[in-house]
């Protein structure tokens, strides 16, 4: 059976791992967790004056699925504006695709983290 290449690539070579300066007013930081498994994730976005996300970084010490999901999420985020960022979804339509299952909480962790980061930026910038 063939894996979704994109997903596998994001696990073996996760993109955008690292940190941004959390004290900068352009940066929104979200730290979320999944108590079911004890995984913690930090996701940071850098937003320019036009409200566009120019950079995104994540750090997680969690399970492989969460890592892949976060990596995909940060790739997807860059170049989006804040209003559309929360529309993150897996839009690949799978026909006859068979994949290993995901832990349920992992797939929502990335979404939670993005929402938290955006909320933090908005709070910092009085929005």
């Amino acid at each position: 059976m063939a894996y979704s290449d994109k997903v596998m690539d994001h696990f073996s070579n996760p993109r955008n791992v690292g940190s941004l300066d959390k004290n900068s007013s352009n940066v929104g930081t979200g730290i979320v967790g999944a108590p079911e498994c004890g995984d913690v994730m930090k996701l940071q976005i850098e937003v320019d004056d036009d409200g566009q996300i120019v950079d995104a970084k994540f750090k997680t010490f969690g399970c492989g699925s969460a890592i892949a999901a976060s990596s995909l999420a940060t790739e997807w985020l860059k170049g989006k504006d804040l209003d559309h960022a929360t529309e993150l979804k897996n839009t690949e339509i799978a026909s006859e695709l068979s994949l290993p299952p995901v832990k349920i909480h992992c797939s929502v962790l990335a979404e939670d983290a993005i929402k938290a980061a955006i909320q933090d930026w908005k709070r910092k910038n009085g929005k």
Partner: protein
Amino acid sequence: MTETHDQATPVKCRHCDKPMSTPVVCDYCHAVGPDAAVADHFTLLGLPRRFDLDTAEIHRRFLVLSRHTHPDFHADDTPEVQQLHLQVSAALNEAYRTLNDSAARAAYLLTLFGGKSSADDKSVPDGFLGTMMMMQEELADALDSDDRAEIARITEVLQTQHDGLLRRIGMLYEQYQESVSCKAVVDDLLGELRQQLNAVSYVKKLLSQATDAEHAHD
């Protein structure tokens, strides 16, 4: 012998009609009860629904019930009976494993008392996740530079945190026993218990990583 839990009417053995102290197995004729495989852990072990249980008593009851239900003593029975004993034994082992560990017992009790699951309520004390994230990074750095003293320090901090959380949880359950009739108080307590238990989950995960790191060179 033990307090009867706050459950419905005691079950009667369908073979000899005598009352059963646990739905697992009849005290008189040792027939396995029909609901044994689906009873909750406390009921299964014949223990009251409390947090502060004596671990020696939990163990004693586990051994007694194991003797009566283990599939080894039914190797000559029909496949159906053997399957029943297999399931009951599995349920008994799971019940013991959960109730024997304080954090697991606390979490399980919360679900029985109607508290929210960790999926429905992820809240933790303010700033807690930030601290966890920071400690994760410290542990990762200590591992990279093989700083044994630092690893040991982090482990100790986590252990202290773990023990403190469990003490707090114990106190909350005591308050729960006392306030069980007042719904508003109970809801608050259950909410706080959920928060503390969520925190324990993160600490336990990090603590096991730190302990593994500590002994990596033994």
